[in-house]
């Protein structure tokens, strides 16, 4: 049985156990009329039985899935010839990949393939089959024995509710730990692959190298030795586009927040808020489309009319549209920051005869500055991590330039480029994507932590 079928079977069994647990508890009590004698409700007995039936089995399934592929691979390699076992890491990976493909292939393909590999493929199918049987068997046994165990403890004074609540509490705790597991998973996945990458490309070359061309490094088999993994152009491109985006988003977002909170009528606000929500809710892929098909050609045509040479995938187009995407974000965070400034300060300034704008510029904004800086940092983090707009509207070529009319590429674009399409997993090319991912994660994390710190400090100031 496949894992998904098994899950359904387990869920069905759990449902059945619920009913069975209720029946047993009634029986233990001595019939439906005697139910009052039980310390807990029959429903609680039922739920407890269902939990005992389902939870261990599901946890077992999860663990099994986690280790299945590694164990099967090891078993397969063991059963193969000595030459295969002595292959080095990457060659073995390739070999096994072929075997895996063959095990899915039709008879025609098998006839033409290397007989050794065909043998291995058959072996693999055999192991898989055995594993599937073993898995199903163990899961069912686990379900039944757990139910049997818990039923055996049923008694009139069995405190089913207490046990049930303990289990539920554990489950709730486990759910809240998922957030931590996710973070750990992210850190592990980018870190491990990055370490592997840095064993073939030295970190300083990656961090300070001026040339980025992962394709070239693949062709010549001089992996990483030609400085083709120098990420500086990507960092520069990311920074350039981020700066353009900020130049767009910060003034517009901030002025929007100021106008809405200080000047606008209730009516205008009731239209402007949904407008900002629309801008915030539009998927980035739509912005990317808009950037690539409308804004970029417009900028190119305008530039050409002015006698400038503009790349068709200019950094300016991607940056501006990214800025538009971030406007609502900046505006809503700035709005919070401005609204957190006590009215007393505003009145103090107005009461001295300052005009509205003098009050805003000289009192409100300086007072809200930490909050606005926090907003700015979060917006930068957004821009740095934004993917679709740049994938669709920025270039692929790693130019090291500060000219916004040129085409540049970014960290996220390269991650997508390196990892989409069919390729072997553990090549330096794909590993480089994870090294870039590590950079991205660390940068955005640092920005977020800094932003939260600034904002929290600032909140304390006025609460």
């Amino acid at each position: 049985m496949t894992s998904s079928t098994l899950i359904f079977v387990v869920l069905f069994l759990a449902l059945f156990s619920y009913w069975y647990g209720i029946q047993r508890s009634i029986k233990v009590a001595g019939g439906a009329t005697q139910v009052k004698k039980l310390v807990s409700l029959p429903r609680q007995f039922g739920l407890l039985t269902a939990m005992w039936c389902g939870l261990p089995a599901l946890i077992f399934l999860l663990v099994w899935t986690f280790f299945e592929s590694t164990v099967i691979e090891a078993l397969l390699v063991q059963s193969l010839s000595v030459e295969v076992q002595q292959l080095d890491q990457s060659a073995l990976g390739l070999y096994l990949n072929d075997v895996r493909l063959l095990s899915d292939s039709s008879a025609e393909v098998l006839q033409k393939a290397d007989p050794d590999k065909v043998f291995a493929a058959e072996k693999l199918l055999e192991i898989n089959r055995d594993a599937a049987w073993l898995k199903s068997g163990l899961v069912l046994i686990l379900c039944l024995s757990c139910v049997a165990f818990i039923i055996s403890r049923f008694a009139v004074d069995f405190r089913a509710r207490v046990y049930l609540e303990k289990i539920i509490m554990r489950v709730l705790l486990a759910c809240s730990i998922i957030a931590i597991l996710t973070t750990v998973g992210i850190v592990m996945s980018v870190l491990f692959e990055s370490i592997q990458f840095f064993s073939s490309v030295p970190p300083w070359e990656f961090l300070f190298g001026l040339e980025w061309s992962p394709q070239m490094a693949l062709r010549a088999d001089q992996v990483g030795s030609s400085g083709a993994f120098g990420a500086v152009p990507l960092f520069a491109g990311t920074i350039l586009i981020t700066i353009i985006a900020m130049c767009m988003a910060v003034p517009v977002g901030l002025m929007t927040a100021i106008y809405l909170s200080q000047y606008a009528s209730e009516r205008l606000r009731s239209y402007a808020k949904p407008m900002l929500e629309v801008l915030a809710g539009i998927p980035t892929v739509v912005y990317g489309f808009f950037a690539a098909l409308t804004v970029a050609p417009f900028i190119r045509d305008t530039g050409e009319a002015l006698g400038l040479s503009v790349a068709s995938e200019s950094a300016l187009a991607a940056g501006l549209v990214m800025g538009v995407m971030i406007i609502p974000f900046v505006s809503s965070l700035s709005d919070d920051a401005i609204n957190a400034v006590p009215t007393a300060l505003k009145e103090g300034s107005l009461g001295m005869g300052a005009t509205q704008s003098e009050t805003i510029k000289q009192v409100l904004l300086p007072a809200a500055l930490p909050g606005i800086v926090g907003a700015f940092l979060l917006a930068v983090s957004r821009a740095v991590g934004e993917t679709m707009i740049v994938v669709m509207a920025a270039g692929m070529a790693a130019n090291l330039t500060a000219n916004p009319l040129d085409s540049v590429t970014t960290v996220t674009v390269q991650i997508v480029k390196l990892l989409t399409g069919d390729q072997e997993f553990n090549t330096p090319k794909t590993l480089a994507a994870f090294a870039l991912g590590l950079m991205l994660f660390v940068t955005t994390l640092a920005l977020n932590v800094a932003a939260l710190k600034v904002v929290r400090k600032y909140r304390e100031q006025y609460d």
Partner: protein
Amino acid sequence: MSDSTQKVINSLKKRHRKEKVFRAAGATAIGFGFLLVFLLITDIITKATPAFKQNWIAIEVDFQPDLLGIDGLDLTRLPKGDYRTVLRSAIFEMMPEVSGRRDKRSLFGLISSSAEFEIRNHLVANPADLGKKVTVWVKVDDDVDSYLKDDVVVGEPGIRISEKQATWIKKWVDSELIESRWNSEFFSLGDSREPESAGVKGALTGTFYTMLVTLVLSFPLGVAAALYLEEFAPKNRWTDFIEVNINNLAAVPSIVFGLLGLAVIINIFGLPRSTPLVGGIVLTLMTLPTIIIASRASIKAVPPSIREAAMGLGASRMQVAFSHVLPLAMPGIITGTIIGMAQALGETAPLLMIGMVAFIVDVPGGITDPATVMPVQIYLWADSPERAFVAKTSAAILVLLGFLLIMNSFAAFMRKKFEKRW
């Protein structure tokens, strides 16, 4: 009048001018926002409109068994006939003035490559037409379609129609052989390399399965986590750590979740690439922080008096949480979940990482079939060079925005309806 009053009066004019400028700047910023929304929406709607129509052409097809290369009596062989030849001869018969290999080829290129399947389907559905000459409507090629729809002339960049072809098309139009019809196939076909045969059904189905997985996983997990953190967790450093984690996760770029999916879910757990299952798991991890944060806020808003009252009646903490607090917090939790789902619905980048970007023609039948989703479909089409895909992309965007609008309006409605009930 005192000296300082005079000075203030002197300064007034300049200051009020500055005030006006500042105010105007603010108004401009908002106006700019409105303008952008307007531009974006009109741009996409204008670009999308052509995609909802498709030009069809009437062709007199002569279903001769010998041309088809099938035995006229054995109906089971009907689908296997040589419809290409039949189609070619039908077209050349219709345009006798076209001669020469080159011209013939470019004439044949004006008909969609799906045409032979359309006439096959016609014959299979109407076997009585075998041996007869009947009119069958087939789609024109996407280049012709774009040429007919857009107000363009031959020679414009992106127009792949020659002068000669243009005269043929004109003849068809003049003799009313061409008809523009509502393009229902856009919603009933999967992806295709040919724009005229590409539809969003595959992507919509993939989106449905992916969202299903996301909802089934993220809703219970999110609610459970929020319930634990709000109602049961001891206030200590461990809980603080979880909280900081959740807040940080909410700001991690989505593409990083894609890397997690690729490295852990596909390469370690070995779940199948390109499937709604993996996509759903990745999106779950991504939307969980949103749902947890919203759910916590909603649970926190339930007044303590309700908990105390229930406790007073002898309910355990767990019973209070599940049967009193949770139902009251549910509207807020649902609102947060919808918002999280709307985010997930528009997400593209992490799904590229886990291979949902593959070209998939078949409509997926389950959560473990290779699939793509609407945003990724939009990305793929936007990348295609054919002119007609621009309209298709825009139309797909409209469909996606429609769903998002419905979800967000519903969330806004929920928020308004259940706002501050106590």
